[in-house]
């Protein structure tokens, strides 16, 4: 078993989940409660990774992070090395790729909250941020947990974007799914099978925990 790749994937998924928890929850809040008329455009952008081929997404992320782009050049000046084909690039790409998996379960559980609870909170002299922390978040904690679990699981299993942006550098960008691909290319089916089975079991366990949290059997996550 390629433990290096597994450790790398877990580290990547943990970092991406943490980042998406921080930025996904505010995005979900805004998507749920904003009355901006062009909101649907932003919703579409957030959901785009669901339908876009990973290669397309990876390609544009690669361009955006490459040494010819402003982002890539700024990164180079700051750190002294390029951004493409690094672990950091994987993080950036994965955050974008997993965004809908973090945002949609959270937005769905926000949407189920009775709006008069928020109005009651306001008339009791409590502002929006404190209302969010004391009412919205506690009442949608299952959705937030579901978002974290789905993000984690989705990041563990991603392949196309990782390959485009990170390549296949052992210990740096070779994730579990790429390791499986490598094993198959090398006709090491036994190794491929072990890792694949591990991912299969893990994915099932993740989804089972999400459904247990949400208890809505037919709403196939991510909820759109």
């Amino acid at each position, binding site marked *: 078993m390629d433990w290096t790749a597994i450790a790398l994937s877990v580290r990547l998924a943990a970092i991406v989940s943490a980042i998406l928890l921080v930025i996904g929850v505010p995005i979900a809040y805004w998507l749920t409660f904003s009355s901006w008329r062009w909101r649907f455009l932003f919703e579409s952008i957030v959901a785009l990774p669901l339908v876009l081929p990973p290669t397309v997404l990876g390609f544009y992320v690669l361009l955006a992070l490459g040494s010819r782009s402003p982002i890539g050049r700024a990164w180079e000046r700051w750190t002294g090395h390029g951004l493409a084909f690094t672990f950091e690039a994987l993080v950036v790409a994965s955050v974008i790729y997993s965004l809908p998996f973090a945002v949609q379960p959270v937005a769905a559980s926000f949407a189920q909250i009775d709006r*008069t609870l928020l109005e009651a909170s306001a008339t009791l*002299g*409590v502002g929006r941020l404190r209302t969010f922390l004391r009412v919205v978040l506690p009442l949608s904690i299952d959705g937030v947990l579901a978002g974290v679990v789905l993000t984690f699981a989705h990041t563990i299993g991603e392949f196309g974007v990782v390959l485009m942006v990170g390549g296949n550098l052992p210990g740096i960008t070779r994730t579990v799914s790429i390791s499986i691909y490598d094993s198959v290319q090398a006709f090491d089916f036994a190794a491929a099978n072990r890792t694949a089975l591990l991912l299969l079991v893990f994915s099932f366990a993740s989804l089972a925990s999400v459904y247990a949290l949400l208890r809505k059997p037919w709403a196939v996550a991510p909820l759109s």
Partner: protein
Amino acid sequence: MSLEVRVRSRLSPRFQLDVAFTAAPGTTIVFGASGSGKTTLLRLVAGLQSPDEGRIAIDGRVVADTGARVHVAPPERRVGFVFQHLALFPHLTAAENIGYGLSRLPASERDARTRAIAASFGIAHLLGNRPAAISGGERQRVGLARALVTDPDVLLLDEPLSALDHETQSRIIADLRTWNDRRRIPILYVTHSQREAFALGERVLLLRGGAIAADGTPDTVLNAPSQESVAQLAGFENLLDAVVIERRPDAGVMVVRLAGIAVDLETPLMSFEAGQRIRVAIRAGDIMVAAEHPRALSARNIVGGTIGALSRQGAIVRLEVSVGVPIEVHVTPTATAALNLQTGRAVWLVIKTHSCHPVSAV
């Protein structure tokens, strides 16, 4: 302390709320059918909605003024709002719900105030329970306590007791009156229940189609309507076409003749001319039924008729008595049995002068 409201708000292409009034300390009942704009009025005062045009001042403090582009956010308005479905926080205990608006206070003072108001509303024993674990009447008290404990400058109640039985309603109304006797702030109390209006109101604003149709004591607004739609709204089952025959200012009465039949009724004197076509509103429960022609009665109106239909609805029996026109009468099941009331039987209806309310025909 007072509440000044002058607002205009278009809610749909065909409906506009347009009201102006000043509410003094004490309870002002906002009475009206559903869709008359009652809830919207409360939401405008609380700042949950903005008026298209107008000005709202609480105790002289302007909280909304479209001309000056003032819109004070709900948390800064110092209003207490009891929502129709209460909107208690389901994940918090009764104590946490009540103390929710006191989060700026130190924990010890918050606890003390929560306990004090819970004791005065008789819910001290269930402070540790979540809303799902307590009864409807108790929840109502938690909702009231939560709104009152913050010491608001104005209290807004949106049909707060409509889901409760009469006994619980009466007890909560008594508690609210006691509280209001100590803290003299304006209370806007939305309801479509006459019982609540009479029990609480020092003043009734009758809202119809987004406008104030009548303004006065519960007695004048709800008992002596001057327009037919008001009568319908206040639950008069009988609206009879009539013509004024004679005015007797010395006795404070007038005589009207029901249209198409030779039946005269004595009614209170109102500003209608002799010969004018009017309507007479009579509540079905204000009419007595006699099995024989009664004699030596103080009631001035005794009308003979025949029972055309009879149906029992819960604790009342609904009679349709034809006196030339059908008149609806409500009696008790025991009276029905004692008088042997049945379809086809001849009876006499007894109606006091002041149970006949003349209203304009248009």
